[in-house]
């Protein structure tokens, strides 16, 4: 990386750390200029669209790249320090998305800043029960990478992963939870929704009902993507409350993707500790902008209307900042309401639908290493 590039990555990290709300547009234009200069595929695409650093004046004009492109094209601005892959799927001959990351330090900065303000607004460290594989088990998972970053920064003694090569270690998890209850030590459970679901099912079968020590919390992510589980987020969360004894504000949903450096979190836990009011929404970090566009026409939609989500993420400096996702959602009161990934749920005929094979997104583990007993 050249000196100027290095400087840009450092400036971005500084911008993220600063909590400075102004200046996004200026930073975004710098990132665009950098990506235009260093990413030949993206540059050609921008030229086709007649959007170049000379003509683009606001971040909204920066050409968006479909997240699906990470499967087929190298969208890196330089040599990657690490390559993340989206999860494999149902055994079909599909491609996996790759996100080559340069500037791991910037990546780390965006993870830490957001995580601490939304999940640990009240304390510095907690014992983490991580319901994902470790970075050694899930070698290419951006989620496992993120877990390792937050475990290192915020995990207290005894923090550990509970998914190994043969799946969720239910017994060890339950026994460690019991110990924590006996010791009155609050716990932080974080991981994929499918693993939580498996834990809930197991506790139900065994007839357990826990009341985890006050201050305990949950962060779940990924939903039931690709599984035939019909359970709304509300029902799932009241199940968590009921079985684990964790109050609703302490249950936080995370939304992220392999193709994107930054994450979104529910505002509930932060609001609770700050004494702020407001409905459950995902916070858009100050280094990210999100717009919603009409799925048919791609015109921008006003607040409250549901459409395709586009994210402009400064933490993606090393690849492409402006992303058009497959996800649907709406903006509301400055926050984001996620409707979930476009599953092609409308494809109801008997035709094999691409989505049945290709479930992009990173959150569920590769099937071989995680088999919830559903």
């Amino acid at each position: 990386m050249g000196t100027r590039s290095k400087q840009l990555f450092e400036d971005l990290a500084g911008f993220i750390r600063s909590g400075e709300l102004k200046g996004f547009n200026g930073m975004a234009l710098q990132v665009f200029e950098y990506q235009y200069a260093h990413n030949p595929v993206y540059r050609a695409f921008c030229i086709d669209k007649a959007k170049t650093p000379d003509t683009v004046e606001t971040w909204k004009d920066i050409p968006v790249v479909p997240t699906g492109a990470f499967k087929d094209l190298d969208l890196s601005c330089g040599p990657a320090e690490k390559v993340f892959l989206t999860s494999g799927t149902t055994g079909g001959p599909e491609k996996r998305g790759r996100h080559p990351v340069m500037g791991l330090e910037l990546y780390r900065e965006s993870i830490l800043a957001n995580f601490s303000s939304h999940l640990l607004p009240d304390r510095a460290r907690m014992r983490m029960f991580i319901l994902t594989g470790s970075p050694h088990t899930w070698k290419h998972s951006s989620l496992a990478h993120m877990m390792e970053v937050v475990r290192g920064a915020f995990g207290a003694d005894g923090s550990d992963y509970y998914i190994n090569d043969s799946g969720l270690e239910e017994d060890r998890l339950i026994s460690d939870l019991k110990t924590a209850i006996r010791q009155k030590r609050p716990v932080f459970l974080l991981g994929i929704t499918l693993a939580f679901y498996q834990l809930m099912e197991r506790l139900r079968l065994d007839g357990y009902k826990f009341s985890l020590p006050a201050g305990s919390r949950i962060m779940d992510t990924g939903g039931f993507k690709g599984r035939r589980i019909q359970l709304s987020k509300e029902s799932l969360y009241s199940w968590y409350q009921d079985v684990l004894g964790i109050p609703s504000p302490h249950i936080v949903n995370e939304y992220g993707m392999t193709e994107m450096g930054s994450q979104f979190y529910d505002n509930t836990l932060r609001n609770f500790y700050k004494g702020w009011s407001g409905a459950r929404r995902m916070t858009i970090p100050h280094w990210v902008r999100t717009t919603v566009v009409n799925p048919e026409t791609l015109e921008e939609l006003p607040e409250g209307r549901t459409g395709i989500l586009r994210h402009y993420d400064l933490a993606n400096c090393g690849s492409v900042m402006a992303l058009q996702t497959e996800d649907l959602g709406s903006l509301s009161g400055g926050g984001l309401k996620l409707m979930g990934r476009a599953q092609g749920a409308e494809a109801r005929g008997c035709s094999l639908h691409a989505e049945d094979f290709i479930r992009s997104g990173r959150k569920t583990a590769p099937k071989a290493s995680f088999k919830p007993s559903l």
Partner: protein
Amino acid sequence: MIRTQTPSGSTLKSFVIPRSPLIREFHTLGLGGVRIQQPFIPPQGLSRMLDSMVDARNTLVSEISTDRMLDIIHATADRWLKRKDSNREAAERHLPAITGLSEEMVRIGLDLVLKDLTRESLGAALDRSLGDRKVLDEFRPIDEKGRRWRKAAGPQLSAHILSGNIPGIGIGELIQSLLLKSACFCKTASEEPLSLALFAHSLVKTEPRLASCMAVVGWPSGTSEAEQLEEILFRRADLVTATGTDETVSEVKRNWAAYSPVRSRFIAFGHRFSLGFIAKESIRTAERMRETARAAARDIALYDQQGCLSPHLYFVEGEGPPPAEFAKALGSALEEMESELPRGKVGAGASSQIQQARSLAELKKAAGEPIDVFGSRGGTHWTVILENEPGIALSPLYRTIRVKPISRLEEAIGYLEPWKAHLQAAGISVSDARRESLSRLLGRAGFHRICPLGKMQAPPVDWPQDGHRFVADRVRWVDLEKQ
């Protein structure tokens, strides 16, 4: 038409069941704004219903001959085709809202399902499958000396677990059960529970005795009540067929295996898709190119690509300009199709995936890859992606199609291996001289039906869906040796 009055307005009765004292409660659900009534079926009610259906069937089986059954089906389908049945009217009126398909599509779709339900073509289909339709009524001689005789017995009770939203879905299953004189229980598709119930009701109008051995009804899947009902059904039925995604079908199969008697049979109709193969001779002249493109556009447009007979991509033989011109011609044909057979409603999720496919193609084009994309303006009504990348990519559907140039059609066979378990039909446009040799390869590759382009959505009534022979996989044979 079946219509009951409720305080909140009119509700469509979307079921046909034999009269039962244990089924007294009903509930209403909204589907695309259409209010649909279904009964609550208590487990005991289902048990009793199945018993009575089997009893009724055992009586009817000797009273209704195969020819009579052909007449019943013929008369019913004929009324529907000639629009002389209020149930057809109701189907046409409500299916667009329920399925999201356009009115034109529903109309054409229903006609396509019904057109072959005549005594002649069904009778001929039985003869083809069983050797002789009369084996369903009596022992028939199978050797010249009259020593050996044979009879085919249909299942006492067939159960069909249906899914999907193609208008008329399940009619084929119901017809097969009727022809085999089997008591027939159809669990309707949650996405489209109406048209089969309406058709069953029309059948009962033609022959009231059918009412006692036929049930067409739905319940929400995945609940413990549903599991209980399925258990009862599977314990009793000697044939179960299931349609749906691979996941649903294997779930049904697991339950079936747990409860069914060992001698019962299971036929799975899982996820399938279709492809097209266009030879260079079919796009040689401008005229031929237009014709071929129109035929292809029709196959794509029908049912908005939702069926297992819908093509996901076309291999087009040749290099350079001809395939590229074909891709453009296909775009024009799809544009024309939009006024003749408009696309129906598309959910945001599907639109989003089409947008992904379009802009990925643009990105690759910018990156210098040999790819191009043509699409409707102001919406995702149709999209043609011309790409050279080898292999097969599934379409996000709703009239999104890939065109892949290939130097020889036979080379495409190599790409099919990973998709073998999911192939359904191959629409082909090749010269007479090549048809057989190409078809042999396609059959070996896993396709079950090879047909001309433009006919993919209009299969004969006895086409081997998922490789199963019409009725033949469902009967039990009985031999009589006279000496």
